């Protein structure tokens, strides 16, 4: 008993002595807190890098090719059995607890969350000098965060329909947010992109190449409008798209008030300028840049080009003139005149450790050269290629086993299967280490802007102008082999089909086919027909009116205790 008493007494003494120390009460110096983390431009830039990091993550890109390409009719997959989550997904016979459906949801919300951190905290930045370059620096960081947030929400809304719009500042009392409607989410995305367009320079170049500029914001805004419009139904969305195309492609001036639709704002212009760092209270009046609603947007029509040339207008002939088209997707074509926004992957300079800025070898896996027994996650086939290209010169970008690749290498692919050169990485551009991704992913290209513009023109009854745009893109593609075939003028439906054909050929294998079919309102028709012709019926189980959007992940429904409602049909 004495021993027990002694132990108890000793323990009390120990606790008492420790409690006397006041080291717990001292301020910790040198650490970041919520208050000071965002107080300089450098720190805000660090937070923005964290947003770009989501784009570079394996998961983001893995989800993009799975949903955008593997579910549609341009490829066959190697993982289409019903025993795995991927097979269930592409067969449209999944449960709401499918892991890829959850993964895509989570990774895009990760991006939203990180972008929200930048946007909500930008006002905490204190500058040493409040002059134009310093204020512009913050404005551009904020503008990029808005673009990226819009990109993540766009991925979410086109995949799941209306999703919860997270508050910019998260609080413990409001962790569960009900879903907004798809229209509300689209309005939120549009607002971000409109504001980003007035905040960003036309393009970032040199050391800053890869950052999203005004071109990326306007191009994505056009796409977001297109996804809200219905082919064959004249609407404001088509008309605004056409107007944006006139600005982007034809150089018809557009001012801040017009792109912002500022007449719909509840905010005063001066408050708006302060919020977006177009102005600052500390900025001396005599140095101020006087932007107003009539300020003209920075010109884009001369910034980008359909020609296969670098940013310095050098021909992309590094792999020969006939390979200039695919060179757009290789190292010489990074940030070329036809590329508006890319996900940047950089090989570590020393190749050791620090692989912070790289994805995994997604493209190497998708184009398994020198690995004839490789995993080949997706591939295409002769019958698909012939219906996809229909004699178009871009068919030359499809390669089979034993073909000579653009860099002179011999293709050692799985015999009998076809692979697009857009996925290939030339040998000398391959990353030094196996798990790295050596080339950037093109996310928005000028060719798509041209084709979106053409489609909007056709929908607005401007057939002749639509034909001019679509043939402009086709004529550029004809330079691959000197073909002279162009599209023929015709009525609305004929033109629409030709524009969609040109979109399919130009943007093939860029992981967007499924969503394009959905927004064209013909996903069920095309994917079911594709599935019917296959032994494993992949695609035949697509349910019209349901599978155009995927279910909200079951975990989200569960943890919200029913606040988050499931999509109809799931």
């Amino acid at each position, binding site marked *: 008993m004495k021993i027990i008493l002694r132990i108890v007494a000793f323990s009390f003494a120990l606790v008492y002595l420790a409690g006397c120390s006041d080291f717990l009460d001292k301020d910790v110096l040198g650490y970041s807190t919520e208050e000071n983390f965002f107080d300089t431009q450098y720190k805000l830039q660090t937070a923005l890098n964290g947003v770009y990091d989501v784009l570079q993550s394996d998961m983001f890109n893995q989800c993009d090719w799975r949903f955008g390409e593997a579910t549609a009719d341009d490829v066959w997959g190697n993982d289409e059995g019903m025993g795995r989550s991927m097979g269930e997904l592409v067969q449209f016979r999944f*449960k*709401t*607890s499918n892991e890829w459906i959850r993964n895509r949801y989570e990774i895009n919300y990760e991006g939203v969350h990180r972008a929200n951190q930048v946007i909500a905290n930008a006002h905490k930045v204190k500058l040493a000098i409040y002059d134009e370059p310093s204020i512009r620096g913050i404005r551009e960081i904020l503008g990029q965060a808005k673009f990226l947030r819009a990109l993540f929400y766009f991925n979410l809304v086109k995949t799941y329909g209306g999703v919860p719009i997270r508050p910019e500042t998260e609080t413990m009392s409001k962790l569960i947010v009900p879903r907004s409607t798809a229209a509300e989410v689209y309005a939120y995305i549009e607002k971000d992109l409109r504001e980003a367009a007035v905040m960003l320079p036309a393009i970032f170049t040199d050391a800053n190449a890869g950052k999203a500029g005004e071109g990326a914001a306007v191009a994505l805004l056009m796409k977001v409008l297109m996804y809200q419009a219905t082919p*064959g139904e004249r609407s404001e969305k088509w008309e605004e798209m056409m107007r944006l195309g006139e600005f982007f492609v034809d150089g018809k001036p557009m001012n801040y008030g017009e792109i912002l639709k500022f007449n719909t704002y509840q905010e005063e212009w001066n408050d708006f300028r302060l919020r977006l760092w177009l102005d600052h209270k500390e900025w001396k009046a005599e140095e101020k840049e006087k932007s107003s609603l009539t300020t003209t947007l920075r010109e884009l029509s001369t910034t980008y080009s359909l020609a296969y040339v670098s940013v310095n207008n050098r021909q992309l002939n590094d792999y020969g003139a006939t390979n200039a088209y695919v060179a757009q997707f290789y190292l010489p074509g990074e940030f070329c005149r036809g590329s508006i926004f890319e996900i940047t992957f950089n090989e570590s300079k020393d190749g050791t450790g620090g692989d912070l800025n790289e994805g995994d070898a997604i493209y190497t896996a998708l184009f398994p050269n020198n690995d004839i027994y490789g995993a080949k996650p997706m591939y295409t086939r002769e019958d698909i290629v012939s219906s996809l290209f229909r004699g178009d010169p871009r068919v030359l970008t499809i390669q089979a086993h034993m073909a000579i690749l653009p860099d002179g290498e011999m293709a050692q692919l799985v015999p009998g299967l076809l692979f697009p050169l857009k996925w290939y990485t030339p040998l000398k551009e391959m990353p030094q280490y196996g798990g790295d991704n050596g080339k950037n992913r093109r996310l928005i290209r000028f060719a798509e802007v041209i084709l979106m513009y053409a489609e909007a023109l056709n929908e607005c*009854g401007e*057939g*002749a102008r639509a*034909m001019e745009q679509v043939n402009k893109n086709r004529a550029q593609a004809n330079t691959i082999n000197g073909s002279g075939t162009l599209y*023929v*003028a*015709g*009525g*609305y*439906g*004929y*033109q*629409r*089909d030709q524009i969609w054909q040109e979109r399919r050929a130009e943007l093939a294998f860029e992981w967007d086919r499924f969503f394009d079919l959905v927004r064209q309102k013909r996903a069920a028709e095309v994917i079911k027909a594709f599935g019917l012709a296959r032994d494993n019926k992949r695609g035949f189980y697509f*349910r*019209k*009116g*349901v599978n155009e959007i995927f279910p909200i992940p*079951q975990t989200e*429904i*569960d943890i919200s205790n*029913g606040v988050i409602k*499931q999509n*109809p*049909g*799931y």
Partner: protein
Amino acid sequence: MKLIKLLQATGIALFVISCEKEVAETPVASITINKTEFTINETMEINFTGVADQVTVFPGDNMQNYDLREQSNTGLVVNKKLFTYAYAVPGVFKVVCVASTHTENAAELKYDTCSVTVTVTDDVTEINRISCPQVRYDEVFAEKMADDNWLMILPRRIKLGTSTPAINIARQRLRFYIPSDSTKVSIDGKSYSNTQNYDLSVPLDILVKSNAGTERPYKLYTVNYAEFASFKLLGATGTLVRNEYDYSTFVMEVTLPTGTDVSNAVPEFTTTAPTEKVYIGDKEQTSGTSAVDFTKDVIYRLVSTSADNPAMQAESTVSVKIRHQ
């Protein structure tokens, strides 16, 4: 010593507690369902209210039929007591809920089941759109009019490159955009086929029948855009120029000697059908009678009307372009 006794007592207590799980709890299968009659793709919500370690639901449709569980049919696992589902095909389905409990390592398994019968109906009779999908390479959509009437307007000819092929109104395919694949369409009493050519020169009676048996009649009228079959101005014959993109817009080119006075000219014209009316603005024009001032831009408005229903009209415009030489 007391400490040792205390430890012994705790050990026995833990042992007894662990032994308790040797017998599985009795499962109770019990569910609530939001309703028992659904339409296609409508969400069914089932809440599990019983007792179980695991809950599975067999919705009863293809490959998920409880009665065929020995033939590879499977159920779906229920998470957090909430299960949502929707049927893709109409029918009557037996939804079976299986509640199970088990001991460690599933040495003992107990089941309980309950079921509910749901009816899924498909009653779609709405036509979203009707089109002629092969007007040469174009797809031309009909316009939705009042009282379930549809109006298709076709060109007589189209401009395709350098040629102007005729469009045969009596031999056109049709395409129906209907939200349900189970809905059946018949035309003039015969089953619709997407590869059959239909004579659109007469109105078609379209009957749409849903899977549930509801019938809804529609009528499709077709008219051509009116055109000038001939046009003469002060002795000169005009040439009709078509628009590749818009079948309702034409240009009439007339070449006259330089200096000809066209301020009060009386054109002579015929239209492609006698029922077609010609206007400038709202004023009807008569061939060989109505004088027009061609020094200004002149746009004729031509209106064609269905012989079977005067509300079915198509309007085209012809702008006159005079060249002097």
